[in-house]
């Protein structure tokens, strides 16, 4: 089972839960699973079946280049974070 951390702004959709433990093979699977438990989370993060432009996903502390398609392991920790840019 992987742990999906819920951004503070979306915790109103999870009844205040900061993390949701679900299983799946990819970030997209996990998000679908979270959304089944707490409808609305997916819509807040996804647009046109991809992560929204202002959202990135970190899997096990690495910003995942594949987005929703990123593969996860049994014990992955997933955070939705702002995308990073630099100077």
């Amino acid at each position, binding site marked *: 089972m992987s742990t999906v951390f819920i951004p503070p702004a979306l915790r109103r959709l999870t009844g205040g839960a900061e993390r949701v433990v679900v299983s799946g093979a990819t970030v997209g699977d996990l998000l679908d699973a979270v959304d089944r438990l707490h409808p609305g989370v997916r819509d807040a993060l996804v647009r046109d079946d991809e992560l929204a*432009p202002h959202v990135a996903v970190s899997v096990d502390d690495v910003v995942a280049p594949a987005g929703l398609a990123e593969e996860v392991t049994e014990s992955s920790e997933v955070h939705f974070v702002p*995308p990073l840019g*630099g*100077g």
Partner: protein
Amino acid sequence: MSTNPMEEAPREYRVIGTRPIRHDGIDKVTGRAVYGADVSLPGLLHGSVVRSPHAHARILSIDTSRAAALPGVKAIVTSADLPEVRDREEALGEGSTNPRHLSHNILAHDKVLYHGHAVAAVAATSPHVAAEAAGLIQVEYEVLPPVLDVRAAMADDAPILHADLRTAGGDPKKAGTPSNVAMITEFEIGDVEAGFAAADEIIERTFDTAMVHQGYIEPHNAVAKVDPDGQATVWCSTQGAFDVRHLCAEVLGLPLSKLRVYPAEIGGGFGGKTTIYLEPLAILLARASGHPVKLVMSRSDVLRATGPTSGSHIRVKMGVTRDGTLTAVDASLAYEAGAYPGSPVRMGAMCMASPFAIENQRMVAYDVCVNRPKTAAYRAPGATNAAFACETIVDELARKIGMDPLELRRKNAAHEGTPMVHGPKHRRIGCAELLEAAQRSDHASAPLGNADGPRKRGRGFATGYWFNAGLQSSATISINPDGTASLVTGSPDIGGTRTSCAMMAAEELGLPVELVRPSVADTDSIGLTDVTGGSRVTLATGLAVHDAAQDVKRQLCERAARTWKCAIEEVRFDDGGVDSLVQDGERLSLAELAKGAGRTGGPIVGRATVNAQRNVGSAFGGMMVDVEVDTETGRVDVTRCTVFQDVGKAIHPAYVEGQMQGGAVQGIGWALNEEYVYDDEGHLENDGFLDYRMPVALDLPMIEPVIIEVANPAHPYGVRGVGEVSIVAPPAAIANAIADATGARVESLPMSPPRVLAALHTRP
């Protein structure tokens, strides 16, 4: 997973870690290097841009007839010549961009949103004629009240920049109300209230920082030509030719294949040349006139109308126990986005407390539109503002509990596994190692001494954190028949990366670095490569070079095996040649294999492309600084400065030092004197280098660099990337030094003489 690099024997390098002379050096010291403004083409016209004299106004009409009648004028464009584009965030360029905002920033449509906002552009036979014509274009405005300050912009009755802008992440009840706040983002870990309850000392303060500019010496420029079939070619000063191509295509509604962008030599960027301003105008004017067109900004244009970084208003509250454990941080950060959304406030929040292991953290970030130019990236965007606030409070907390501030930092240093406010945990980082190096440094133990009369001396220290970026890069290495190599990447070279990349190729291929010829290619001549930004070139393009060299080595092995008619497993590349593992002493040098390549299968060309997101290694920097404060005038002199940085691995130590020193001095300028000064109507009053006060040589001591190398386990050489973090610590370090000297805490940047004197008058 990652291994602990400290346990591995360090690899012996032949080229990496040396200091060869840069490949572009001779061109740059003899004046031969070709920068964007040096590009000339037959029939070239010169352009000029008409800019708004108002900070906020509705455009009622634009009359170009008098300008068009001026002899020598060949084309005029206004926003009517730009297609309508999508009004929603897209993954564009480095981060996300709203193409409509981008388009409107290039030429104002219905409204101008800042002093200097481009309204029209003209091309003529000489720069003087173009400027005269620009002066003849008559724009009628309905002037609107401007809003210049984040706090004013967040007020309920503030003038609204964008009638259609709604706050993302805001109160759902206000979802229908126009606002200048583009986005509110919350971050939280742990239990902040419990953290403060456990604290013995708590300090809460608010800080303000001024909008500042990257200050590259070369103004923006663009030369464009458009062929009769619509194929456009652009030469410009950019940190990312592929981003210019993508952004221009988006704004002009063109397929990428219709655009070819040549990155000219670039005279500094620091993040400010990661977007577009002149390029689409040059293309439109070239298309309309049938001639190539050159546009070059004046310094005033650069300051008024390109992207500085955000001024900010930050509140921070932190708690510490008597024995020196930081228990909680609670902060709100409001950053000026400028005229269109997109400040680096979220990154500021994420960096703010990242040098520390603090269990309980909460940050709220506000991205706020104001009638100032649209901000762009500037070296570790967002982090410096945040560090100024947090790092001065940490210093003050240490003094409050009677602990050496450096020791408090070391005791609370972030390490591998420490979670950050946005959730993810630090990977292998060198924060503690950096603090220990600072404690051990000569500077830390050197006596401060006393100054004369009203002058007081003090010493300060601060740290800074920056993520660094990975992103995409491409590289090709062609082995020439004479045994030399041509290395092509798509990363515009600002700080010497051509040579660092050549060094990595030389290291792998066993060649002297002088025999690797690096060049930076245009968008048709190399695979997609993201911007020179995010401290990513040596990391990510370096990784592509490393991988391309492996490709070359594999091909060389194949050719050797083919020559010897043996299996590829029976040969091995080693130190510039291929050895046979079965025939003792049989060896073909790279040069021999190159010369015979035609007979063994054709030219040898290695290539690699990467998305280096997984390879990123984060950066820590620190500054220790001595100042002398003239307590009667408030003038602050920096008298000694040492900069510390965990660089992972220094490929070319002199260039690494250069990044550390240059960033430090930009940070010193930010700390002491740089600021955008607007009058009440929103006119920028200091749109030149006389009054936008960047440090000059006489303002500074030598900047002593201390390189710390805690290898990034996710990179073949341990590289982290060095470009950005050096700017983060200086303002806080200097504020701490001023407090050490005088007891006064300055809570606003810049800490200019009037501000310092005022703080001295009000000190407790």
